[in-house]
């Protein structure tokens, strides 16, 4: 309990630092929020245009897909708020030798490495995603029960953690090859898959992005819970199992990388 309180205190300090840093460049901070919102609007426009020519994609109706897109954006932005900048700057820390300094600090290094920077813009963008989801639900004339909302929140957290574990694992590879940015970028491009309806895919593609890299689960399962489209609890169990596997994998990768680490400079 004491350690937990200590780490909570540390995270509060991270927050304070990040706010101070962001407020140094207010205009830039606001512009980034606008940019992210624009890209989100763009994805929604794509769906609206497709639905001009059809009334359903597999078993998904228009507003259900909008809900799914909102859910995917929410999960991605929360991941961004907590983890993204931290994961992408790991290779930079290794390259500049800052990582040595982090290893010496009396805290869990993975904690420090994963959470040091808070991306405040992520919270604002996540809020816009929630607004879109509420609008979609209103269009569907659906009022989710408290239990469904709770379920959504829990599953969204699981989704954020899955993104984090994969990104952390990929970043840990940057210990061996300093040029892992390409790999990190590749994962980032796969975010696009998360916001598409799962039943539009089949065959090996679907299997791969369900059981190997669960992109088609992270947002689809929580969105299905809200839209009451979940046919069996099997998908929820699968999502949870994938999170456990992803965490164990990222922890193993992290350990191996640490063992092989032999300082960059100094």
């Amino acid at each position, binding site marked *: 309990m004491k350690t937990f309180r200590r780490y909570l205190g540390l995270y509060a300090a991270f927050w304070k630092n990040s706010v101070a840093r962001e407020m140094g460049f207010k205009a830039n901070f606001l512009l980034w929020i606008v*940019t992210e919102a*624009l890209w989100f609007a763009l994805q929604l426009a*794509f769906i609206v245009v*497709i639905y001009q*020519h059809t009334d359903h994609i597999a078993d998904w109706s228009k507003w259900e897909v909008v809900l799914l897109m909102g859910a995917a954006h929410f999960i991605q932005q929360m991941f961004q708020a907590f983890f993204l900048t931290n994961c992408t700057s790991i290779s930079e820390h290794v390259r500049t030798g800052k990582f040595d300094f982090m290893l010496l600090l009396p805290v869990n290094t993975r904690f420090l490495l994963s959470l040091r920077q808070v991306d405040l813009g992520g919270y604002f963008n996540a809020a816009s995603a929630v607004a879109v989801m509420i609008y979609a639900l209103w269009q569907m004339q659906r009022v989710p029960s408290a239990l469904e909302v709770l379920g959504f929140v829990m599953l969204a957290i699981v989704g954020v953690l899955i993104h984090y574990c994969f990104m952390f694992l990929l970043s840990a590879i940057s210990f061996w090859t300093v*040029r892992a940015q390409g790999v990190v970028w*590749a994962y980032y*491009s796969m975010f696009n*898959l998360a916001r598409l309806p799962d039943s*539009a895919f089949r065959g090996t593609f679907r299997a791969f992005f369900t059981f190997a890299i669960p992109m088609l689960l992270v947002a689809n399962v929580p969105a299905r819970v809200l839209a009451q489209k979940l046919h069996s609890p099997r998908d929820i169990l699968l999502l949870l199992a994938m999170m456990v596997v992803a965490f164990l994998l990222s922890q193993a990768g992290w350990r191996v990388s640490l063992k092989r680490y032999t300082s960059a400079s100094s």
Partner: protein
Amino acid sequence: MRKYWHVINVGIQNTLVYRVNFLFRSAFGLIPLVATISLWRTVYESKQGDVAGYSLAQIISYYLVVTIVDALTAVYDDDWQIAGDIRDGNISQFLLKPIDYLAYRFCLFSAQRLIYTAVASIPVTVFILLNRKYFVAPPDAATLGVFAISIVLTAMLQFLISYTLALLAFWLLEISTLIFIIFAFEYIAGGHLFPLDILPPLLAKTLFFTPFPYQMFFPVSIYVGKITGSAMYQGLLIQALWVFAFYALARVVWWRGIRKYSAVGG
């Protein structure tokens, strides 16, 4: 002229360093492509027949040709480099040398596109062969010729727009958000996301008053046989006019920027 051949040569050698990076990028870029194609295929399954005037083969070809044109003409990080040159004062050396910065940059851009296309052709060709059933050929040889000319104009337009935008770094400290915002417009209004003629006619017509469709949609729709006959030649003329307009604008912005420039840190 010889000095510019030299620049191209240097550009090729510098970009060759990134070949693995390019391979990764182009290979992973296929994942969202597969996703988009699957999504459309699902739409066609329930419709039986054409959607918005496109057959399934035409729409799949549309996205495949977008990928090819994108490899040939997209600006990779030239704009960031130009902005960096201005911010860090590196541009001073070009003011002293008997070399034209625009031409210099265009040579580097061409060299880089050459290497990128060569590398990307491996995964893209494999992918097209896998989808050859859906890959339509252009109507005739003349169309193919116009398509080729149009690609060259597209590359010039893409380059000149990015170049002009990057020159705003003479006045603004931070232009990355601006680049992303314009990129968003190019992405949707250029036809990366979906063919523009599936939009409501009025909206599609309005878009054709902007340069965006000539950055992607125009050459691709020549290839898939959506723009033919006199409309094709007329479009080619308008595209050339846009290239000329942005060339003039780039010159003016450069000229004004240089007067403002104070060689910070140079």
